[in-house]
């Protein structure tokens, strides 16, 4: 008996396809159970992200960095609500400034505080002592770390967004668009960035101050905002270059051609087919951007161009500590260690991410 389904298929005269109508049912053999079993999926299918995380978990240095960063982040989020002091508040005794509470050493109490302890009151210890204005140094370090880390992360995200959009457009459309866009990148890339950063942060700071007065932005401080603007203006170029290179190599793949053949929109090809394939480069570069932004911020703060007082960052804490370097070296050493720790952990994490996610190294 001939199979009707096969027989009814319309065939092109010149087709070289196998003529199924010539086959009979007994020409086909049913798959055995064993053969069927081979098709069963044994393990869960792995995704790009899961695969990378598995490899990252095997890297002890990267895992240690993640733990250190997690501890630091939890600490800067939780500690301000535990410690009863404020970063901009001098120690008070009986309603006036406690003059004995300036320049305290690690875990020291002022005279007024000792009297209060003797009276049975509980006084929260100054873990890192106090500074020359009688402010608790521990909470200042916590806030400084907060500022430094958030500057790093916000700057990295801004660089990521601008670089991603710019690089993807230049790489994908190519031709004249690419040429002009990349010339602009070339020029910005060859500018000496540090000189402009120093100059612009001074200029923007003074220009922005009257503009943002009274708004929520004023709380952030004009210095912080000008720093963000400067980062956004100058640091995206290397990201844009990287993304463009990736897009250029990926857009010639067959699956992109296939997508274009069936009439997929440019925006969908970019977001669904091309960008997910540059994900490893994007993750790694962003992770390594954070420490470099923290470096720059602390450098600017150290020159006195960073966040505005009384707000502080690790760089400005180190700068303030220079005045009493000989008598209170711990005030320099503590922020210095924290900067090194953060930058070191982020660098090692970035290296670990590269090893885990870069498809070329697999």
């Amino acid at each position, binding site marked *: 008996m001939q199979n009707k389904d096969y027989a009814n298929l319309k065939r092109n005269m010149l087709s070289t396809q196998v003529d199924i109508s010539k086959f009979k049912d007994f020409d086909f053999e049913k798959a055995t159970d064993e053969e069927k079993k081979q098709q069963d999926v044994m393990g869960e299918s792995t995704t790009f992200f899961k695969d990378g995380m598995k490899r990252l978990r095997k890297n002890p240095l990267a895992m240690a960095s993640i733990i250190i960063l997690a501890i630091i982040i939890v600490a800067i989020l939780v500690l301000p609500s535990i410690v009863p002091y404020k970063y901009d508040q001098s120690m008070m005794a009986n309603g006036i400034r406690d003059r004995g509470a300036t320049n305290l050493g690690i875990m020291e109490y002022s005279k007024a505080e000792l009297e209060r302890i003797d009276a049975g009151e509980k006084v929260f210890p100054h873990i890192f002592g106090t500074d020359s204005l009688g402010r608790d140094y521990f909470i200042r370090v916590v806030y400084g770390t907060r500022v430094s880390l958030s500057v790093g992360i916000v700057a990295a995200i801004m660089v990521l967004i601008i670089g991603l959009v710019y690089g993807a457009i230049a790489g994908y459309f190519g031709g004249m668009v690419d040429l002009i866009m990349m010339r602009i990148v070339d020029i910005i890339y060859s*500018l000496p960035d540090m000189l402009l950063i120093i100059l612009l942060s001074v200029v923007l700071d003074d220009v922005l101050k009257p503009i943002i007065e009274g708004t929520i932005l004023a709380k952030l401080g004009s210095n912080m905002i000008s720093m963000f603007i400067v980062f956004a203006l100058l640091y995206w170029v290397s990201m844009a270059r990287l993304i463009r290179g990736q897009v250029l190599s990926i857009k010639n793949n067959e699956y992109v051609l296939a997508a274009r053949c069936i009439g997929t929109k440019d925006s969908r090809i970019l977001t669904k087919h091309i960008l997910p394939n540059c994900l490893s480069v994007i993750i790694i570069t962003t992770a390594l951007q954070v420490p470099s932004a923290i470096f720059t911020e602390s450098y600017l703060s150290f020159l006195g161009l960073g966040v505005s007082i009384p707000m502080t960052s690790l760089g400005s804490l180190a700068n303030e500590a220079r005045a009493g370097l000989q008598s209170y070296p711990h005030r320099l050493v503590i922020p210095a260690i924290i*900067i090194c720790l953060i930058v070191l952990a982020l660098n090692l994490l970035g290296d670990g991410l590269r090893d885990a996610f870069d498809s070329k190294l697999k």
Partner: protein
Amino acid sequence: MLKYTIKRVGLAIVSVLIVSAITFFAMNLIPGGPFNKEKASSPAVQQELERRYNLDKPVPEQYVLYMKNVLHGDWGVSLKSGRDIWTDIQMKFAVSAKLGGSAALVAIIFGIILGSIAALTRNKLPDRMIVFLTTLGTAMPSFVLATLLLLVFCLQLKIIPVWSSSNPNYVLPIIALSIYPMAYITRLTKTSMLDALNQDYIRTAKAKGVPAVWMIFKHALRNALIPVITYVGPMVAYILTGSMVVENIFTIGGLGTSFVTSITNRDYTTIMATTLFLAILMVVANLLTDLAYKLVDPRITFE
């Protein structure tokens, strides 16, 4: 090659011009001028001063005038001290160049030596130690290192005297400036040296019985150093900006210090002159690096 060179030189000139324009217009945006003092001088004096230094003209016209003068070799006089800026820059650059040049030399020499040692003793104790120290070196900002060095060696141990112009001791500033680029060069040398040691020509040399020392220096290191050349440009930029804080910490009166103080002083002509001078240095260093890279490695094709 010629086409590429012309293109790069053109780009360098454009970027110097852009820096000069940004600097000029940006510094005019800063509220407060060079003659705004706490004790106000009479309006007539103020006006006369502004007229004398062309400050009463519109900013674009001032810019054109200034650039014209610079192209004729006239950098003007400092608005604060009244001294000739060019002689000032020459004097300060001599100090900065001594510091930066020695730091660059130290970084390159020790970086290459340490990198080669690390590559040759891969995964053994010396390699591990070098990797550990370089990771630490790249995580420490130069200003932290400089202050710590000052604290330990000058103030606590009192081995090295604090810097003074009559008794200049460049050891600590050079260390502070050179650690980061040295760590970077070490890493760079190590990876490219490992790469070179795996090449076929090294195996051939070994098979021929070339002495190990000769093989390392003649065959491996020469090829391993090509990527290091690319870092020279960025290193010059790093050292120039790094010296701004390091000079500040050790109170060395170099170009870096004068750049920062001129901004806070609103000393327009000095800001322009130092920015332009530093920008030209960095751009030229980058230009030469790119050209040298293409010259040294004939495998690199020209766009």
